[in-house]
């Protein structure tokens, strides 16, 4: 520990800057230093990044080395930054340190959140009131367009269908599977749960490829069916079906993909909830002569209701923001588009920034109530833990 480098020794360290009275001038100084310190962080970041950038930009450099350097810069860089800032504070007179340190610790988070969430969110709202190239103010026109254009209306209808159907099915299969697996031996329970859970680790793009083969379609007379569904249809004497272009069922077939990836999540969370239902309650119900079905509906289900709601809302949010599966599988053709996918299309294919931003804002507003419920629940859960 460095001994305090003095002046005005009667004041102990760490005075809050808002203290009034005779300490006004030092308080101002303290404030300025804090400001300077929190400003230094982005400056440092930029310096570190710019130096490494030039090399990372070089298209001809050894790719492996570039990747290695990128990882080292990214991982070590952030640590060096904090360490350097802390050294810098350590040089200052001791009475300043306690006041400045919190800003060194929390400052970078605040800066990044401002740049990457606060500013963009505000900006997106503004863009949504501007024309397609953001040159002039058009009021609510983009929102009116969204709710009157056929294509966007289709995507809104589809998104609502997804949100109504998918989470319910995910929760139902997850709950059913968790309940049944609970009755098995330990080994087969964990193996079967792992199998169901595995798709959770697969990206939506990967899941789309997996199911692309399941839905594979060859018109009759163009060789064997290599997709298992059409092979089954053919074996049963039917003619092959182009699953992804028959409306409105193609949306249902896309939903299957998302259900496939999400059931594992629902199952694992619900399974742990079911296991935590007190054994005495179940035992007592059995002694009173409850059948397994009654036991499920009257005892188990009521005790896991709050978990069911958490899982349901989580899946609702995932579904609402779904983009990848539709984009990869159909590109939104044949009446399959959804809001988040439509938004990307407006931004990057039609270059209609106003409409894209309006869709983003709609997405955002619709997600708020659900997320607030989730954060509340999560807070309550963490409090118990």
């Amino acid at each position, binding site marked *: 520990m460095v001994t305090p480098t003095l002046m005005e020794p009667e004041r102990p360290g760490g005075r*809050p800057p*808002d203290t009034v009275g005779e300490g006004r001038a030092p308080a101002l100084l303290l404030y300025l230093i804090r400001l300077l310190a929190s400003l230094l962080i982005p400056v440092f970041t930029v310096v570190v*990044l710019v130096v490494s950038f030039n090399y990372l*930009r070089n298209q001809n450099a050894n790719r492996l080395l570039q*990747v290695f350097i*990128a990882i080292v810069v990214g*991982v070590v860089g*952030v640590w060096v930054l*904090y360490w350097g800032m*802390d050294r810098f504070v350590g040089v200052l007179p001791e009475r300043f340190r306690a*006041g400045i*340190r*919190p800003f060194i*610790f*929390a400052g*970078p*988070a*605040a800066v*990044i*959140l401002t740049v*990457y*969430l606060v500013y*963009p969110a505000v900006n*997106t709202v503004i863009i949504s009131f501007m024309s397609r190239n953001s040159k002039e103010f058009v009021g609510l026109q983009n929102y009116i367009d969204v709710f009157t254009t056929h294509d966007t209306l289709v995507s809104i209808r589809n998104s609502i269908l997804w949100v109504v159907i998918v989470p319910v099915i995910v929760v139902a299969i997850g709950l*059913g*599977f968790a309940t*049944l*697996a609970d009755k*098995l031996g330990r080994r087969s329970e964990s193996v*079967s749960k*792992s199998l*169901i*859970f*595995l798709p959770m*680790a*697969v990206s*939506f*793009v*990967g899941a*789309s*490829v*997996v199911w692309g*083969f399941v839905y594979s379609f060859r018109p009759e007379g163009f060789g064997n069916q*290599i997709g298992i569904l059409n092979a089954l249809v053919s074996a049963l004497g039917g003619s092959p079906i182009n699953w992804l272009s028959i409306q409105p069922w193609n949306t249902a077939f896309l939903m299957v993909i998302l259900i496939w990836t999400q059931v594992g*999540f629902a199952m694992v969370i619900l399974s*742990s909830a079911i296991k935590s239902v007190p*054994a005495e309650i179940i035992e007592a119900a059995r002694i009173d002569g409850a059948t397994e079905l009654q036991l499920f509906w009257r005892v188990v289900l009521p005790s896991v209701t709050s978990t069911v709601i958490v899982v349901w809302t989580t899946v609702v*949010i995932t579904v609402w923001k779904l*983009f*990848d599966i539709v984009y*990869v599988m159909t590109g939104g053709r044949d009446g399959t588009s959804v809001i988040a996918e439509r*938004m990307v299309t407006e931004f990057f294919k039609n270059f209609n920034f106003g409409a894209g931003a309006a869709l*983003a*804002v709609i997405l*955002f507003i619709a*997600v708020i109530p659900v997320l*607030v419920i*989730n*954060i509340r629940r*999560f807070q309550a859960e963490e409090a118990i833990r």
Partner: protein
Amino acid sequence: MTTALSQHAEKGFLGRLVERWPAKLAVTIIALMWTIPTLGLLISSFRTRDEIRGSGWWTAIPHLFGKAQWTISNYSTVLGQSGFGNAFLNSLAVTIPAVVIPITIAAFAAYAFAWMSFPGRHVLFALVVGLMVVPLQMALIPILRIYTNFDLVGTFPAVWLAHTGFGLPLAVYLLRNYIGSLPSSIIESAKIDGADDFTIFWRLIVPLSVPVLASFAIFQFLWVWNDFLVALVFLGLDPKAQVLTVALANLAGNRGEAEHLLPAAAFISMVLPMVVFFSLQRYFVRGLTAGSVKG
């Protein structure tokens, strides 16, 4: 669990079998339905081009041990010519820093919010938590405009920082809850022993917070590795910079010519998350639960 055990003792082996078989059957059927699509893809990935195009993967099952028909050439073609080797490296270069950076920044901020006193910390923390409701779709265009102005599109740091921004509210919230619940006595006694904040953070807080750091790390790893949208927007379609999900989506896009390469390509993109999943299941689940509040 105790219920189940006591029952077994009463009913014996046969009784257990009779009682269990409907559940067992149902579980087996669902598990099969969930596994078959991936299994089919796995089998396809080792078949030759003509076989993949000519017949379904199930026709290969009867000759499962006939050595001649299996090949790994799809994997070598995908890794080499199709650029998935490069894309794998890019995914690593994007993912590792995009996990470490938000965790580091969030851990420092969480420590400040939990154990340091400064004006406005409660308001600031509430603001951070509130930002969890902002979906990343809200941020895409303005950030893309900033990046275009500074010529940052297509660079790794551009993606790291975007993922950092999108992951930070959840990370700060999770870590603050955990770090705030550590006993204050250890921190106070470290202070009495003369440790400064940085030392306390580095020597005490970080080691004690390993479980929550691991949960968030796994959640963020899967999120970034499997992300398609952010990578597509900020890295673009430049084949040199593209990550696995973007490369895979491209390959799937020109399905006609590359159909026989898709299974191998898909497995290359899945292998790392699956390894993480199997080795760290315990933390994985908690991370996923935590993810329920990500906007």
